[in-house]
């Protein structure tokens, strides 16, 4: 992460990379110092890293490999454990519930990348102006984020309640009553209803991140664009949005991670039902491992979920590192 800019003091020890140093002389000096540092004590960083690495290995890497091992057994997490090779994975690809859950995660992912990002950005732009009452709106829109999932789920379960829930009552009032829609009971609607509740919460969060990003956009650039006669839309498209790009990357990554680890609202609002149509991989894993006593199968699900997450995380990391090197 360490970048050397200007002629500030170079790092004493060779942690991090030296890239794009502006002038030749300091670069040489830094390189020389680095070499010296390496020769003198190239174990020093590892000494500093030893404790965190040990903990990381114990609490993250270790369990990861243990889960992988479990996924190759038929253990019930209790008493017996027999090596079954890839049987759990074979069962997985033939399991309808797995595919339903997988596609539900995909739906969640797509909606989470698009809706809160656009909505949150729009709200941020709207509320970034010095108008009376914006603080109140900012607080109101962000407030769902500080609610616990249990509260969000309880509130939305009521909103979705078919008999006298908020949505159906409103529809009644507007004259679109008729058949009461079971938002969480309809097998085709349930997952979208849950994603809707999750999006409601996510928008405020995304808005806050964008608001912080907007504070870092140099207003003189926007003024300059305006002076050059750019319309508001032009100045947004060609000046503000490109400057917000790092923020957008963060927002998308957060949304991807939140979509993949979706669990709490599903567990609280439908328990994956009706008949697993609103299931997601995280909840399916929990059910198999802890309710059906299939630790091995649950572990296989966890491994698959991790692999999917890794695709996104590696893409993100590669981009991040590349961007950093290009600055």
């Amino acid at each position, binding site marked *: 992460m360490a970048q050397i800019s200007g002629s500030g003091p170079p790092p004493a020890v060779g942690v991090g990379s030296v890239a794009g140093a502006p002038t030749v002389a300091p670069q040489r000096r830094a390189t020389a110092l680095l070499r010296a540092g390496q020769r003198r004590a190239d174990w020093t960083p590892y000494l500093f890293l030893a404790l965190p690495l040990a903990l990381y290995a114990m609490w993250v890497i270790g369990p990861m490999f243990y889960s992988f091992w479990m996924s190759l057994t038929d253990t019930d997490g*209790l008493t017996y454990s027999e090596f079954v090779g890839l049987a759990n994975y074979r069962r997985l690809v033939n399991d309808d519930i797995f595919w339903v859950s997988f596609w539900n995660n995909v739906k969640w992912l797509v909606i989470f990348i698009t809706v809160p990002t656009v909505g949150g950005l729009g709200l941020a732009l709207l509320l970034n102006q010095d108008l009376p009452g914006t603080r109140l709106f900012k607080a109101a829109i962000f407030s769902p984020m500080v609610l616990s999932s249990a509260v969000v789920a309880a509130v939305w379960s009521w909103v979705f309640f*078919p008999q006298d829930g908020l949505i159906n009552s409103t529809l009644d009032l507007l004259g679109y009553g008729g058949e009461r829609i079971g938002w*969480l009971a309809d097998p085709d609607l349930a997952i979208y209803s849950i994603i809707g509740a999750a999006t409601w919460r996510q928008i405020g969060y995304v808005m806050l991140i964008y608001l912080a990003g907007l504070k870092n956009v140099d207003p003189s650039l926007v003024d300059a664009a305006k002076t050059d006669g750019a319309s508001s839309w032009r100045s947004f498209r060609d000046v503000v949005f490109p400057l917000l790009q790092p923020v957008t990357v963060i927002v998308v990554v957060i949304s991807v991670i939140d979509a993949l680890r979706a669990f709490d609202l599903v567990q609280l609002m439908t328990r994956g039902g*009706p008949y697993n149509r609103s299931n997601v991989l995280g909840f399916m894993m929990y059910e198999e491992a802890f*309710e059906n006593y299939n630790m091995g199968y649950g572990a296989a699900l966890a491994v698959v979920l991790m692999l999917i997450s890794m695709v996104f995380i590696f893409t993100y990391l590669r981009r991040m590192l590349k961007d950093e090197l290009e600055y």
Partner: protein
Amino acid sequence: MAHDARRERFIDDVLAGRLSRREVFRRGAALGFGASALAAALAAGPGLARAAQEAGTLNVSSNNSDPEPRRFMEEVTVPGFTTKTGTEVELNTVNHEDFKQAIRTYLASGDPPDVLTWFAGNRMRFFVERELVAPVSDVFQAEGWETAYPEGILAVSKGADDEYYFVPTNYYGWAVFFRPSILQQAGIETPPQTFDELLTAVDTLRQAEITPFTLGTKAPWPAAAWFDYLNMRTNGPEFHVKLTDGQAAYNSPEVKETFANWRRLLDAGAFIEQPEALEWQDALTPMLQGEAAMYLMGGFITDSMTTEQEQDLDFFSFPKINDVPVGQEAPTDGFFMSAKAKNAEQAKQFLAYVGGRESQEAAARDPELARIAVHKDVPLDIYPPLVQKQVTLLQEADYITQFYDRDTSPEMADKGMAAFVEFMNNPDDVDQILDGLDEERKRIFENG
């Protein structure tokens, strides 16, 4: 207190072996010690009583997390046991649903609770097979429970090796509950006895614009009650038990007939719309508001009703379909003892206490609890009339089952109950659903 001091001295006397057998019982009883505790103390010799005093605390894990059962456990059962035996109890109550998962870790840990609440039947055998539960046949014999408990209950307290592992305390029945006033309003004077009468009643209620059956399948288990009863009435309880044991096929002609009967109810419009949106308590509301007439539910339905509402509540046995023996669901709750219990002797004393008449009668007499005691010496007339009627219903049954999610493996229950809800949504897919279910059965029961 003087009484306590006398008890202390008495315990010391027993420990030192200073008293004769007769003396122990005479003085012990006067001081409030139970006969079984004294017998156990004598049988095991002074060492046991010493251990009982020193090891002291018995560790009990309970899933009685609902307000009334919890209160009873904390304020009646545990103090009663401590007064009787002098053994202190450390009670750990865990939310009912969480307990189902936590119990595995409890039992498998190196330092498990001594005694745990649990369910009779296959749910108990799951842990017996894994050698995590201690056999307690000696307690059954010492207490004479083999003649004190009903046959069906004894059967679900045994492991596959014919030893007793589970001490049942109470059970509740299932039936079709209804509001007599609503049936009368629709012109139905006598509750349906046969399936045809039931279908007629459904039609009549529909014409009167009353929902015949309310149901909540957001948590899917109430749908399993429908499956259990339809299958038992169609194919008989013995076939049903074979099926839940994984010995019969879900796509067999027998099960298909069960689902054909279910289909007839669906086609007749027997059920409330969108049961998937409702928890079982939510589903009670339409019935209390007079929009629905009947509810296939457990005896605990009254827990969610006021005394006034209970005045207009009655039930009938699920109607007969084919000429087969009558099975009834009676899920039985109770306790078992961890195989690695540190305080094994006190644990057995505790089991002897909760399995005994005295403690079960207290639970039956408690006006808010009204659990049906397992012990046959608890007089019938202490129950409210509706509960008395349930006891009669169960005593007349040819066969007692524990409910789908207790009779079959947890995993099969999960798949099965989802399938029942799916069937109610898409009855046309019945063949595909049953084929899928049978694939699951083969896989689950093959693994054992």
